[in-house]
Every structure is written in C-alpha cells, then in structure tokens.
C-alpha cells in the first residue's frame, strides 16, 4: 500500500452474523486470505491444525479461531475484531457469533457498524436465526445490509435457489426498516463472488462482495444536519503561556460545526459563538462526526462535562422521561421498579425503570404485552425516568445521541443497551 494513497483511504466497520455452520468463519478467512491480510505464520499454524485433523483442504475458518475455551468447545463466545485493508479502504470486522444465546454480542458488534453482513446457507434458505439477525441489524440502525447466500457450489450455482432466498428475504426485510439491502450469491469456500465476479454464475449481474464493501458510500450515513457536541472534558492548561485558555473537548456526535457559528449550550440554554476549532492544538475550519476536537467559545460560560453544545434553533430534547427499546445483557432480569445507572453521551445519571411495555419476540416480531421482566438476550420496550435531563435525539435520527447503556450499581456490570424511541 503506497503511502500516497493513505489520505484517500477511509474506514468501513462491518459486523458479520450467521447461524452456526453457514460459513461465516470461512468467508472472513477468505476475505483475509484473498486480500493478503494473512501472515505466513498464521497460515502455517492453520495448515498444521488442518493436517492434524485430517481435513482435505486448509480450513480457512481456523484463522478466526480465538480463545482456548472456544477451540475446546468448537464455538465462538465473544465478538472478535479483525482487520484488513485494500488500497481503497481499511476494514474493521466485528465478528459476532450467531448462536441464539449471543444476541448481546451481535447487538454490541452492530452498534458501531456501518454495514452488516448476514450469511445464509443456500441449501437451508432463510432460517429463524437469519430473520433474527436481520431484525437486530435494523433495530441497531446499521445503514447497509448485505445478505450473502453462501455455499452456492453445493446447489450447482442454481439461479432459482438464489432467487428463492432473495425473494423470501426481501419480503421479510420490508417489514423492517432496512435502508440499503444487497443480496449476493457466493461460495466462501471456492471464492465465488468474493473478490472477483464468479464465472460459475454468469446470471448474476451484481458486484463481488469485496467490490461492494469497497464502494458502499458511508460518509453520509452520519447525521450531518443536527449539530450535537457532548462536552467530554474541559481543557484548562493553567500555564503561563495559556493563562486564559479554556477549551471544550469532545467528539462531534452530529452536524457540521463551523468557525463563527452561533451555538447554544445545554443545560444552561445560553448562546455564544465558536471562535476556534482545534484538533490537537491546531486550528481547523470545521468539525464533523466522528472527529475529536476542542472548541473555544467567545463567552466565558460555565460549561462542564455532560453539557451539550448545539445550535440555537436545533437542539436535542432535554428529557427525563424516556421511552426506549432495550436489549438485556445479563442473567439477572430487568424488572420494572429497578434503578440503574444510565450513561448517555458524556452524561451519567440514575434511571428508574417505570414500566415494561412489552417484550419482543425477535423471531416473529410478536409483542408480548404481559411480560413482567426481560431476561438475558431479550428485547423489549421500557419507560425510564432519569434523575437529570438527558440531551437526546431519537435513535433513528442519531445513533450517538439516541443510544445509552444501563449499568448495575452493585456489580458495575453493563446490563443493558438502550435506544431512545421517544423522550419528554
């Protein structure tokens, strides 16, 4: 990769999901292998293991093998992150296991993904699990979804089989909100339609998977309209040279902030103008997500961590009462009446779960209105009341200002992931 290309190169984060044995590890191994992201020592170790087990071919799935417990039990326990690059892009894969008990891992992987890749086995067609994966992708608002119909080699590269799966999936996807769906017939094992178009499927007129990953446009997926800047840290050097310096550091969560912009600061509601935008002490003209910058303002207002900088006529809701979808992530069930710590942008408060509206069956999308708790890996809609106002947007408008986590006060564990539906 020549250094000159670097500035043109951007980053795509994608999450993968598939049921056990659909070929997810093989597909990832194939992408890594074909983009020459695999090192000889890794390959040797995989070849050795394959040989020792008596496999006929090198099992690329072994490349993504992780912890000892996983090797012993032959399963994937946790989200693993993997990296590869082409001259166009750097890719970060959140490789999430597909078993039913690991919904929480998929939610975790999808929360930061620009794109989700869901695999199905062409012979089996759409399974209950595939539907669940697609649902979670839409719930987490991953902007792009790619369905890979894998193992096409085992169905003689038959177009009819592919069209059947595609039709079934598209029908299901219309029930969800999936902004951008692509369906690609592949063989992870043979490499068909992975890096280059397959000659075995002349009837397919789309692009290869890698070509799609390299070209899908993601910059505009972020909210560039509503300025949101959660104040993370106040920089005050208190040195002779920078005696009066006061900078508000944080990561832009929405909108484009420009020099000279009039801004409003929440909670106070006071307005001022942006006099300086800095990246590492160096001035820049504008800031947009996900840049980490420092803002300096014309007036000396009392601003601290947890405050939110926005535009005077476009502010987030300052809400104590939230309606949210939560995914529960711990054994101890969520029950109405409980109190948790809520972390939302840079603000932390306590939150009281006032009620559980319903529990959602992630396979059928059926709502159970009589549920009285949410167990591990279950998803439902709750009403929360926070001890302080939270400056939030609907999750569908902005993933950064609409998402929050719940933490158990006793154990300090992260127990839930929430997405704001409505706030008051």
């Amino acid at each position: 990769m020549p250094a000159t290309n670097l500035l043109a190169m951007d980053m795509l984060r994608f999450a993968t999901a598939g049921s056990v044995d659909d070929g997810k590890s093989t597909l990832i191994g194939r992408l890594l292998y074909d983009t020459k992201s695999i090192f000889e020592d890794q390959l040797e170790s995989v070849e050795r293991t394959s040989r020792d087990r008596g496999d006929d071919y090198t099992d690329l799935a072994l490349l993504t093998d992780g912890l000892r417990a996983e090797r012993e039990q032959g399963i994937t326990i946790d989200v693993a992150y993997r990296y590869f690059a082409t001259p166009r892009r750097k890719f970060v894969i959140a490789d999430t296991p597909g078993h039913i008990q690991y919904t929480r891992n998929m939610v975790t992987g999808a929360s930061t993904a620009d794109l989700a890749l869901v695999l199905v086995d062409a012979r089996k067609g759409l399974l209950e699990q595939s539907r669940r994966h697609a649902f979670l992708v839409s719930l987490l608002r991953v902007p792009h979804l790619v369905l890979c119909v894998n193992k096409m080699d085992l169905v003689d590269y038959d177009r009819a089989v592919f069209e059947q799966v595609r039709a079934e999936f598209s029908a299901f996807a219309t029930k969800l909100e999936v902004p951008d769906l692509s369906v690609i017939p592949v063989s992870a094992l043979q490499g068909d339609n992975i890096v280059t178009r397959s000659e075995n499927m002349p009837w397919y007129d789309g692009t290869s998977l890698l070509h799609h990953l390299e070209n899908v446009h993601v910059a505009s997926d972020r909210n560039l309209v509503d300025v949101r800047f959660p104040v993370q840290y106040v920089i005050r050097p208190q040195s002779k040279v920078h005696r009066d310096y006061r900078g508000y550091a944080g990561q832009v969560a929405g909108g484009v902030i420009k020099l000279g912009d009039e801004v409003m600061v929440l909670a106070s509601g006071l307005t001022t103008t942006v006099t300086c935008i800095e990246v590492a002490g160096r001035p820049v003209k504008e800031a947009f997500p996900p840049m980490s910058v420092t803002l300096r303002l014309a007036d000396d207002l009392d601003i601290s961590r947890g405050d939110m900088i926005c535009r005077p006529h476009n502010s987030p809701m300052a809400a104590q009462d939230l309606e949210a979808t939560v995914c529960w992530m711990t054994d101890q069930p969520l029950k109405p009446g409980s109190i948790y710590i809520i972390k939302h942008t840079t603000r932390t408060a306590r939150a009281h779960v006032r009620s559980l509206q319903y529990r959602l069956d992630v396979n059928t999308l059926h709502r159970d209105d009589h549920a009285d708790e949410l167990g591990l890996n279950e998803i439902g809609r709750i009403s929360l009341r926070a001890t302080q106002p939270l400056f939030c947007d609907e999750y569908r408008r902005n993933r950064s200002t609409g998402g929050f986590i719940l933490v158990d006060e006793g154990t300090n564990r992260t127990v839930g992931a929430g997405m704001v539906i409505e706030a008051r």
Partner: protein
Amino acid sequence: MNTAFVDYRLSQLDALEAESIHIFREVAAECRRPALLFSGGKDSIVMLRLAEKAFAPARIPFPVMHIDTGHNFPEALQFRDRRVDELGVKLIVASVQASIDQGRSVEERGRRASRNRLQTRTLLDAVEKHGFEALFGGARRDEEKARAKERVFSFRDEFGQWDPKNQRPELWSLYNTRVHHGESIRVFPVSNWTELDVWHYIAAEQLEIPSIYFAHKRAVFERDGMLLADSEYANRGDDEPVFEETVRYRTVGDMSCTGAVASAASTLDEIIAEVAGSRITERGATRADDRASEAAMEDRKREGYF
C-alpha cells in the same frame, strides 16, 4: 495530519486518531488515577503522541509508568527519558529487579529464562502502591488472537486477572469505566490500529523512534529461528555461535526474548514498504514469549499481564 475534508469523509488514520483521543479523554474524565504504560516501543510512542494531542495545549494529565525488566535496550531507555522530559510528564519506573530483590518474584532459570512473565508481579504491585485505577496500554487487536477478543476497556479484578468469558459489552462509544475499590481497568486506545497504521502514523506525524527500529549492524545468534541480540541477558549457549548481521527490530521488548529481523530498511518509507510486504506477524517473527504455546498470551493476560 492534513486531510482535506472532501464530502465529510475522514481518512482512516484520522478516524483512528479521533477514536483514540476520545478514549484518552474519557478515562481522564471518569477514572481516578490513570497512568500510561510506556516502554519506549513504537506503540507506546504513538500512544504518548495521542495523549499529547488529546489534552493539548495542556500537559498530559497523568503519569507515565515503565515496567523496567532491567533487560532493556539502552537505546529505548535513553529515548524514554528524553520524551518524558520534553512533554513534562511524570515518569514512574517500576523495577522487576527490585521485585526480585524483595523476594516478590523469582528469576526464571535455564537458557530461555526471561523476565517477561515477571513483569506481571511488578506491574500489579505498582498498581496497588500508586492506587492506579486505569492503565493505558498500547496493545492492538491485530497482534494476537486473545487480543482480538479483548475489549478496549478491559476490566481486571483485584488480582489483575482478565476473564475473557465475562467481559463488559462495549456499545457505540459508551464505555463503562466503573470499578470497585481495588479493581482496575486496562485501556487500549489503539485497539483498532494495525502495525501498518502505526507506521503510517509515525511517518505522518514525523515521530522520532529509537534507532533500533532502523537497520543496523548487530552481533546476533540464532535461536528457534529468530535472531537474538548477543547480550549479557541472553544466556547464549556454546552451540549458538555469534555472527554479525544487518538487522532491525519490529517490536521493542525484553532483550532476552525479542528477536531482530534481517533487514536493510533504514528509513521510515523503507520500513513501511517492508511491513506492507511482510508476510509474518510481528509477534510471530520476533517474540519468543508468544511462541511458547498456542495460548501463551491468553494465559499471561488471565494472570494480569497487560
């Protein structure tokens, strides 16, 4: 860096930098007593630069800690002291030799003895002594398979142990930094960087690095297919003849177990070209400690290693 912000796209290095800076600031805002682990190696040099950027123009608001095995490359030590001076940060040195002298650790024996594993005890003692609640480390997920599954905020119990099956889910960029008294967190701001990203960043930022990363002539000997420096710490046997080779280092660790690679790369551009074309992971090529077993790193992490 000087990215032109065409259509509001960030280059991948800018995106990585933004993420790392966010992590540094989050810890500084939420954790009591953070510290940055600094070895003088390239990853910790990048870390120090990111920390500098995160809080500029203020000073880095936490100390830097070096776990000193006593088996360092002298070049790395000199470099460490100079950088720390320039930045005006406080340096804490925790010495493995002192742990051995106090009977807290026992020196390994035999030819392959190294102090790598002993660092854990010294580290945990230092964490306790200084009451550090969060330690920044420069580990990357592309380095090794146990690390591929480790969170950015890696929670450790009061014994410093990592429990891979019991990690906190990490959603969006919301990090749960809460710990009970006595527990701590290891934070890895460059988790998502690859070896090549680190080199590109060093080049883009024109960061100075210790001379041993560039090709130089050195007296080495071969062990387990690696080139080790002939030093007083190497326990070289008579069957391991010394020869001179033009080499460079891909990682800077303990002299006793960090291997050099034969290389003529003497500029950053040449190093980048070499790394981009390299077909061997940096740990596979140069770290005897990871070669010991398939799960070597996982085991050390469970015991409280970085």
